[in-house]
Structure formats: structure tokens, C-alpha cells
């Protein structure tokens, strides 16, 4: 692999030299890098406002894509892949003490735009800020496994014992127990460094006027209207620096209008609210896909995202595994993918194909209403029963739920639909017994998340394991896997999943396929499995 790659870059270099010779003076001045011209402005249409530009507060995917170019984290995923690579760190952390101690060396010269260094102190300050209850951060959970975190939260300690600044460029984390997910945790935008002076000076205003150290700087944000990001000229790393001078983000543009704006060249991308493929509404998708004019505008990629049907296992009729199996047979998953106009791939299991732990030997669930009826009769429900399906309003959620409702009615199960807002949906999910069945999805690059949030009984309380799936054998495997290095965890996850899938607490529906509608003048566009968009890679052709 090494040789051809180097060869290719040589050819590219020669091509660039030739091109810059031909392209006369202006191109040479504009800073040419591997055929990429720097400069220019891209216009992005979003359908709502991001929540916050304070990394400790924002938890929505939309804010996160922007925070990703405003603040540097220690590690990140390699753009376009699920592989974790160093970013603010000089190399991957050294893990010692049986997987409980992580030592990270930080790049010298990372500076916030106010000149404060983004060093080990800044990271420690930022992490402790998240844990202080007054910050009201939704990320306390991701640091809960650090030694001394709970004492700090409770106000019993002045600082977190498990976060140590060894020298200004070295930080050390001690965990209560080994956790292979910690590497992924420190890729979260929330766990970037923040400048103490600026944070303390700005107070709550930091959320709208953040001082960052990423590839771009937030120049202004008018609530409801838009944001302007400009290139950070003092960004620390030439290899990952941004190319565009400016990103103009329009917020609150309905997606059906955003798509038309892209067609007209008034915007470069319809991004929706960065919620897995909602930039192109269902109503416009097929015309765009089938129109040769837009062929060069369409990008697509299968995301590490699994949609599944959840059945509360302690609910009366659903207690019976035969009833749950019947429902698995009754759901016409192919029809759902068809309703989505092919923006999904049938799922055989919860773990998506792009992540370690995916098990190709698990077969697809068969669609067989006759068998479903037979199973229901065996379970003592020959005429079905009444239940309800909860789903959130974001399209095409209601369509999916209506499709499943119809399938269930065909085998005699009468389900009432409860289409609720996302906020209500998550509270219902967090209430045990809140809803007998629902549709849900995970979108993440952490394999452990897919397994634990679905099948681990210690996630019931948090409202993630909504089926209240609790099989001691599965719990044991998952808890053990969590403490092992990734490669050794994979076989345990696979065993756990094989055990779990025959319990039918969850019916995997499909893996999400993201389509994006982007003006072809944008170069370097790539759908990223973690952030969807990697703005620093974009340039104008």
C-alpha cells in the first residue's frame, strides 16, 4: 500500500507544479496545496439554530459539526472513517496500569484566538468545568469513570484527582476501571480545551461569543438568522488547516427551500439540522436523484447508524418472547427502505457494518406474516392485542411508524401511534414503562455504545436500553468487553449479540444511508461518519 500511494502523490505534485506554471501569477499567490486553492466563501443552509457554541453545553449533532472546527480535541476520528487518530495530541495516548492510566502529550503552540495557550492546564480546566454542576453540562457522564470525579461533583474535592497536569504539555487520566471507550470519549467536542480567562470573562455569553483554537473562528452569530465563521490564521497544524476564508451559515431555512436554493446556486449545501440525511426532504429526493442535472451534486454514504424497533420486555403481552418474535416476522422492513426511497440498507443486527464487532454471519430477519400469526396463536393471542408505538416528529419518522403500524394490524395487533417531539420522546424513553414499543436509532463511531446502550442492563436507568433488556449472561460479556482493548473486545461483543438477538427485544430495521445535495463547486466534500461534515477540508474548485 505504501509504494503506490507515494507514487500517486508524486504524480499529483508534478501535476500541481505544471498547473501552477500554467495558471500564472494569482494562483501562486493564493497558497496552493496539493491542487487545492485556498480562499473563498461557502454558503450553508441549515433548518434550525444550533443550540450553543459552548462545547460544554451543546449536545446536538448540529452544534457539534460547527464546534468541531472551533475547538481542538486531543483525539478525533480520521475524516471519513471511524478510526481514532491524534489531533491536539502528538500521538495516540500511552495506556498503562492495566488500561486504567492514559498519558497524552499535547502539541506545542496550540493557542486560542486571545493568545491563551491550549495546553494541559486548559484541558484540565475544561474537563473540570464540565463536571461542576453549575455549568449544567450534559457531558458529566462521559467523565464519570475518572478517579475522583464523583467527589469533585459532590464538592468534596477542589480538583479531580484522576486528571493530572504532568507538565504544561502532558496530561494524565486515571480511570476507576479500564474502559476502551475512553479513547472515543476524548474525541467529543465537549472534551476540548477552553480558555479559562475568556470563559470567566464572558460568562454565559461564551455560548454565543466563544474563543476557540480550531481551524475557524466564530465571527458573529445572529440568533435565528445565521453565523459567519472565518479562517483561523493562527491555527497550529498546516496539515489539517481549513481552506475556505469564510463559511456563511444560514439558519432556519426550511429544507424544501434549501434544496431549491442549492439548485439555483444561492447556497452550496442543504444540511437540514445535521440529523442523519434530513437535508433532502423525502418529497424532493427522487426527483433530484433521477434528474441528470444533479448527478454531480449528490453524495452518499452508509453511516454507522442503526434504526431499530424497541419492545419493552416487561410490558404484558411483550413479556412473551414468542410475541416479540411474531412482531419481528410481521414487520415489512423492505417496505420501510422503499418508503425511504432506498436511503437505507436492511440491518441484520444492531452493530453497523463499518464498526468492529459487526458479525457478517448473523442472518437477516425474515418477513413472514403467516408465521407471525402462528406465533401469536401459540403465545395465546390468536386475535392479537392492543399496544402503542412511540416515534418522534422528525421526518420520515411518522411514515416509518405508520408503515409498521399497518404491518402489525395485518397480523391482528392494533397499535396506536404516538408521534411526539424529540424532547418528549427522550423523556418517555427515560421513563421505565413510558412506552410499550418505539422506533429509535444510534449514530456513533463507538462500537461499545451500540452494544451497551442496547443490551446492557446498567443503561436502563439512563433511558438508553429502552427494551429494558436484562440478560445476566449478556451483561457479563459486555462488562468484560468494556475493560479489554478493542481487538479483544470484539469476540465478546459478537457472542453477546448472538445471545441477545434471539431474545427479540430489539428488531434491527436498517442502517442509515446519508445523501447530501452539494454544489459541485465545493471540493473536498466527504460525508464523515462522526460529524457528517468536515468543513476544514472544503475548498472552492
Amino acid at each position, binding site marked *: 500500500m505504501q509504494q503506490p500511494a507515494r507514487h500517486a502523490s508524486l504524480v499529483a505534485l508534478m501535476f500541481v507544479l505544471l498547473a501552477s506554471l500554467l495558471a500564472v501569477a494569482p494562483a501562486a499567490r493564493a497558497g496552493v496545496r496539493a491542487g487545492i486553492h485556498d480562499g473563498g466563501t461557502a454558503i450553508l443552509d441549515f433548518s434550525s439554530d444550533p443550540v450553543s457554541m459552548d462545547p460544554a453545553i451543546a449536545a446536538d449533532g448540529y452544534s457539534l459539526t460547527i464546534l468541531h472546527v472551533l475547538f481542538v480535541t486531543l483525539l478525533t476520528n480520521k475524516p471519513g472513517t471511524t478510526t481514532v487518530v491524534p489531533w491536539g495530541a502528538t500521538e495516540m495516548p500511552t495506556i498503562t496500569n492495566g488500561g486504567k492510566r492514559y498519558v497524552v502529550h499535547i502539541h506545542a503552540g496550540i493557542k486560542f484566538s486571545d493568545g491563551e495557550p491550549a495546553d494541559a492546564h486548559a484541558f484540565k480546566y475544561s474537563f473540570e468545568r464540565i463536571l461542576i454542576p453549575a455549568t449544567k453540562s450534559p457531558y458529566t*457522564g462521559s467523565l*464519570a469513570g475518572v478517579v475522583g470525579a464523583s467527589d469533585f*461533583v*459532590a464538592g468534596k474535592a477542589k480538583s479531580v484527582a484522576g486528571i493530572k497536569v504532568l507538565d504544561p504539555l502532558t496530561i494524565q487520566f486515571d480511570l476507576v476501571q479500564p474502559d476502551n471507550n475512553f479513547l472515543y470519549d476524548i474525541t467529543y467536542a465537549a472534551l476540548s480545551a477552553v480558555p479559562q480567562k475568556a470563559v470567566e470573562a464572558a460568562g454565559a455569553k461564551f455560548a454565543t461569543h466563544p474563543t476557540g483554537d480550531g481551524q475557524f473562528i466564530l465571527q458573529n452569530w445572529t440568533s*435565528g*438568522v445565521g453565523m459567519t465563521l472565518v479562517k483561523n490564521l493562527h491555527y497550529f497544524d498546516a496539515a489539517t488547516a481549513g481552506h475556505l476564508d469564510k463559511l456563511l451559515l444560514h439558519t432556519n*431555512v*426550511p429544507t424544501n427551500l434549501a434544496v431549491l436554493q442549492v439548485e439555483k446556486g444561492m447556497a452550496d449545501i442543504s444540511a437540514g439540522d445535521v440529523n442523519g440525511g434530513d437535508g433532502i426532504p423525502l418529497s424532493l429526493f427522487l426527483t433530484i436523484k433521477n434528474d441528470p442535472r444533479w448527478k454531480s451534486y449528490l453524495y452518499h454514504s452508509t453511516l454507522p447508524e442503526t434504526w431499530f424497533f424497541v419492545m419493552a420486555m416487561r410490558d404484558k403481552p411483550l413479556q412473551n418472547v414468542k410475541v416479540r418474535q411474531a412482531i419481528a416476522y410481521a414487520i415489512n422492513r423492505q417496505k420501510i427502505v422503499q418508503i425511504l426511497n432506498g436511503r437505507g440498507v436492511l440491518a441484520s443486527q444492531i452493530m453497523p457494518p463499518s464498526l468492529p464487532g459487526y458479525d457478517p454471519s448473523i442472518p437477516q430477519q425474515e418477513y413472514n406474516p403467516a408465521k407471525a400469526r402462528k406465533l401469536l396463536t401459540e403465545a395465546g393471542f390468536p386475535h392479537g392485542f392492543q399496544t402503542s408505538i412511540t416515534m418522534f416528529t422528525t421526518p420520515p419518522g411518522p411514515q416509518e411508524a405508520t408503515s409498521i403500524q399497518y404491518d402489525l394490524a395485518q397480523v391482528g395487533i392494533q397499535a396506536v401511534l404516538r408521534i411526539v417531539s*424529540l424532547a418528549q420522546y*427522550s423523556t418517555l424513553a427515560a421513563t421505565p414503562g413510558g412506552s410499550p414499543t418505539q422506533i429509535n436509532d444510534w449514530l456513533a463511531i463507538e462500537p461499545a455504545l451500540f452494544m451497551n446502550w442496547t443490551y446492557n442492563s446498567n443503561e436502563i436507568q439512563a433511558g438508553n436500553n429502552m427494551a429494558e433488556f436484562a440478560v445476566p449472561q449478556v451483561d457479563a460479556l459486555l462488562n468484560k468487553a468494556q475493560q479489554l482493548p478493542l481487538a479483544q473486545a470484539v469476540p465478546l461483543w459478537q457472542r453477546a449479540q448472538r445471545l441477545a438477538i434471539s431474545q427479540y427485544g430489539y428488531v434491527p430495521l436498517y442502517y442509515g444511508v446519508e445523501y447530501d445535495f452539494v454544489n459541485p463547486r465545493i471540493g473536498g466534500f466527504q460525508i464523515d461518519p462522526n460529524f457528517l461534515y468536515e468543513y476544514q477540508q472544503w475548498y472552492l474548485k
Partner: protein
Amino acid sequence: MTRHLLERLLWMAVALLGVSVITFVIGDLLPGDPARVIAGPQASQAVVRSIRHQLGLDQAVYVQYWRFLGRAVRGDFGLSFRTQLEVLPTIWARFPYTVAVGVGGLLAEILVGVSLGIISAVRRGTVLDGIVICTALLGLSIPSFWLGLILLYVFGYLWPIVPLGGTSGWTWIILPSITLGFSGSAFYTRMTRTAMLETLSEDYVRTARAKGLPGRTIVLKHAFRNAIRTVVTMAGMDVGAFLGGVLVIEQVFGIPGIGALAWQAILNEDLPMIQGTVLFAASLIIVSNFAIDLMYGWIDPRIRTAS
């Protein structure tokens, strides 16, 4: 007169208090735990408890209300659960857009409605009258979001003369105003027509006509002045329904007004923001009703003496 004014002001305050109670009670009924939503799914119970305490959610409802009221009279509606930003400045930032759409819509409504009404009254029984009546009926029968999307498609996409949604430049205001105004204009058309016809049949107008004054002068001088009273009353009664209409229009055109803000807040169960926007909208309606009341008295002195 002063007494009447003071009484009105007092009632305005009472009405606002009532609205605040209503929003608080409905808000209390909202399912779900805001502290859990803020803390995120992975947070421990201790963190959730702490946040609940910080927000005062562990207090009895009436204590919460009392605190809310104490802050609200000082113009402090608290922090948004979702963004942790102050509620009132956010509302003020969005307010100009709603005002622009509302005023634009009202102008469109009155201009279209009144002029159609005058035309149809003056040309009563002609084909023109028929066309006007049909247009008015059409306006009554079309859902505004439906009309809005079709207008956007035609004038924003097929023949792009205005922006495709959003708030760039000043031309963005045209389509939302027309959309909002079209449905309401029908009422003004009918009202103006009726009022005009009544006036036109009054003796003094007939006299004016007999004296040989040109038609246009009669219409403008006498009949129109009398029709105005009705229009002002209706405009006053309109404000509430209008704000509701603006809520839908803002969705269609992607306008970041307080309607869109309130709607997002309801979707996110962002209680302080819901309370803030509802109270803000209510104050707006109450104040403008009051203003209309004063204006009404000024236009028609008979009212003043009556009250």
C-alpha cells in the same frame, strides 16, 4: 376619561397576570423532567438532582410561580433550558422579524381589502364586483401555508424575483405579507363594501351627488371616512389571530420571528422560553388592543363621550 384609562391599565396588568398563571399551569402539566434533559442521558442521579435544585424545580409549584413572577416583573424571564441563554434578549432579537411580517401582512390585508371593497361598492352589480367577491372568497378558502408554498415556488424558483425564503435584503417581506394578508383581506373587502354601500345611500352623499360633485371626491371624502371606523375596529381585534397566523407563515418562509422561536421552544419543552414567548405575545396583544381603543376614540369622538 382619566379614570377610564387607569381602569384599562389596571385590567391590562390583571390580564397579564392571568396569562402568566395559565402558561405556568400548562407548563407544569408538561410531561418530562427538564433537569434530566439538561443533564443528558449519561448523567448520574446526583447531577440531575443538583440541576433540579439549581432550577428550583424541587420546590412546590406555587413557590416556583412566585419566584418566576418576582423575576418577571423585573424583566427577567430566566435562562432557556436548552441554550442556557437569557430568554428576554433572545425574544427581543427575534421580535423585529415578527413585527415586519405582521405589519406587512396588516398593510397588505387592509390595502387589498379596502381597495377591493371600494371598487366593488362603487361598481356594485357589475362583472368587476363579481370578480372582487370571488377573489375575496378565494382568499377565505385557501390555507395560508398552501398559498405561501405555491407563491414561493412561482416567484422564488420559477421566476425568481424574490428570495427563496429567509430574510435577506428587503424583498423577502413581500411574499409573507401577501400570503398573510390575502386570507384576511376578504373580511375587509366585505366590511368596506357594506359600510360604503350604507354610506353611499345616506342622504348627505346623495345630496353631494345631486350637487354634481365628481364621483371620486364623494367616495374618498365621505364614504371612506365612515368606513375607516370599522376597519380600525377590525384591525384591533385582528392582532391575536394575526400573531397565530404569523406563527404558521414563519414556518413556511423560514423567518426567525418569535413565532418560530415559540414553536421551537414547545418542541424542545423549553419551559422558560415558552413562558417568555407566550407572555410576550400576550402583552403585545393587550397593549395593541389598548392602543386601538385609544385610536378608536380619537377617530370617532362619539365613543369617547359614550364611555
